[in-house]
């Protein structure tokens, strides 16, 4: 089985590279593969580019490449957090947003878009506000859900869900009070998830967060396996469930906060990708967490390509497309495999 996981990874790594090149090529303004490869090689190795490619170079380097890379980073991050959260709350229906974190971020983002809070931060106002909202929401969930024995699954889910309703109500109220229809539309677009704000400034922060977060979660792989057996059994395996859950919660909350800050609330990836990956690798978290980031990255790159090209020059919200692409493939796999979703 170990070899099978390696084989899948060896397939997905080149697939990811190809996806990045394709994601950079396809879009409203048509470019050729040759030009894109030429530009990427030139920018990477410092060669000079012919003048005819100057316009294309601008599109690739300023818009498409950061956006495609951000799609990869966000897709990887959401998948990994989804895997971890499903184990932390022992619930196959959980996704990164079940803890109310994205709803908190939405309040921050809506407040910035509509009331112009944090205007001094310019381009980063939205991301900063979303991140602060996410942190506030996770802090509240943590403080309410914790008990003497650490965090328990049911309390986490219930607190997160209740809080999500509260924050959604506040967001709706803010949008309702929006001075213009345009501002309301902007907020709605952000809520459905978008990579349009990708830039070289926020990309490294998100990439480092996803890299560190995924690495840490992978190291907790055996602990995540033990959590699936139940808290008491985990304790007998030398894994103190309550304390591990607190550490995982903090990592997942921070990572989700960063992801939501750069891309809004892209739904469905964090719920579906973990299951899709488990159908192939089995339930062992060290295998799932090795494959999930690669699969999630490829998936979101192609979703983003579709969002830019299907209704060009208009852009479709990513949340709509993850559902349109994801639901049918998910249902197909459901029919074909004897996968049980962790239930009976």
């Amino acid at each position, binding site marked *: 089985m170990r070899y099978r996981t390696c084989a899948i990874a060896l397939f997905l790594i080149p697939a990811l590279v190809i996806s990045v090149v394709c994601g950079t090529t396809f879009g409203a303004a048509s470019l050729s593969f040759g030009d894109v490869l030429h530009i990427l090689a030139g920018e990477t190795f410092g060669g000079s580019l012919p003048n005819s490619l100057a316009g294309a170079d601008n599109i690739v380097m300023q818009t498409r490449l950061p956006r495609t890379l951000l799609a990869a980073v966000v897709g990887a991050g959401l998948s990994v957090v989804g895997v971890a959260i499903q184990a932390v709350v022992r619930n196959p229906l959980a996704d990164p947003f079940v803890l109310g974190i994205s709803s908190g971020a939405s309040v921050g983002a809506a407040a910035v878009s509509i009331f112009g809070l944090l205007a001094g931060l310019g381009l980063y106002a939205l991301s900063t506000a979303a991140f602060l909202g996410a942190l506030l929401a996770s802090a509240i969930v943590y403080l309410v859900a914790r008990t003497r024995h650490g965090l328990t699954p049911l309390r986490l889910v219930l607190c997160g869900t209740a809080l999500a309703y509260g924050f959604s109500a506040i967001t709706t109220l803010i949008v309702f009070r929006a001075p213009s229809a345009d501002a309301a539309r902007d907020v709605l677009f952000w809520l459905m998830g978008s990579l349009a704000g990708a830039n070289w400034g926020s990309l490294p922060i998100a990439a480092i967060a996803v890299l560190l977060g995924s690495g840490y979660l992978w190291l907790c792989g055996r602990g995540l396996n033990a959590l699936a*057996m139940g*808290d008491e059994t985990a304790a*007998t395996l030398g894994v103190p469930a309550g304390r591990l859950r607190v550490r995982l919660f903090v990592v997942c909350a921070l990572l989700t906060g960063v992801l939501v800050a750069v891309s809004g609330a892209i739904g469905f990836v964090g719920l579906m990708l973990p299951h899709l990956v488990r159908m192939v690798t089995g339930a062992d978290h060290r295998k799932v967490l090795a494959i999930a980031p690669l699969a999630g990255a490829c998936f979101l790159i192609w979703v983003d390509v579709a969002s830019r090209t299907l209704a060009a020059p208009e852009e479709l919200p990513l949340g709509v497309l993850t559902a349109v692409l994801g639901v049918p493939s998910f249902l197909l796999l459901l029919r074909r495999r004897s996968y049980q979703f962790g239930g009976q």
Partner: protein
Amino acid sequence: MHLELDSVTVPAILHGLTLHAGEGEIVGLVGPNGSGKSTTLRCAYRALRPATGTVLLGGDELESLHPKESARRLAALTQESSVTHDFTVTEIVAMGRIPHQKPFARETGEDERHCAEALRTVRAEHLATRGFQTLSGGERQRVLIARALAQRPRVLVLDEPTNHLDVRHQLEVLDTVRAAGVTVLLALHDLNLAAHYCDRLYVLRSGALAASGTPAEVLRPELIAEIFGVRADLVDHPRTGTPQLLYSTIEENP
């Protein structure tokens, strides 16, 4: 390895319980529902920290041991039987090796050997590639026991290991436990199984010790009537000679 509970108190459940399981001994906890058997075991396998009193494992205070170190010494079968995610039997048994592994390290040949041996011991090799969720109750229980054995513990703590099992599997599971040759502390509802398999019994009532000793010393009809409220007639097992109880309700037989 010795396991000792010394004046262990858990508010409203256990009231200063002291018990001891010596090297290689099989010690049974019996008592009515709610008498504190599971709570006692939870203190022993470190899922619950007693309010006062100490638990000693191999002479060391349990709280002073690193969780992994205590997990290398003591394995337990809890009442939890639901497992989220579709783990295979092999993956479940491999979890028994967690206390022996570093986070970075892969499974070693030694890990795989212990897992295979544990599966063989519970006669479940043929289930190795099956999904845990697809197993019957009896198969699950055997696999979970294999997981505990793969931990290579010196002490086994078992909470109702014969729950949901048919007669044959009840005997098989307890035979396996006895053959493991380690110190065992287990809770059992079936007094006849307890009499057959345990070296010593502790009888709990309302979180305190009501009696203790060998099965022959403990399983007296007066005590059974007092603790469980049933009339019991004592007979010797025709094959093994161990004391066995035949029950009837007190009302029916004045």
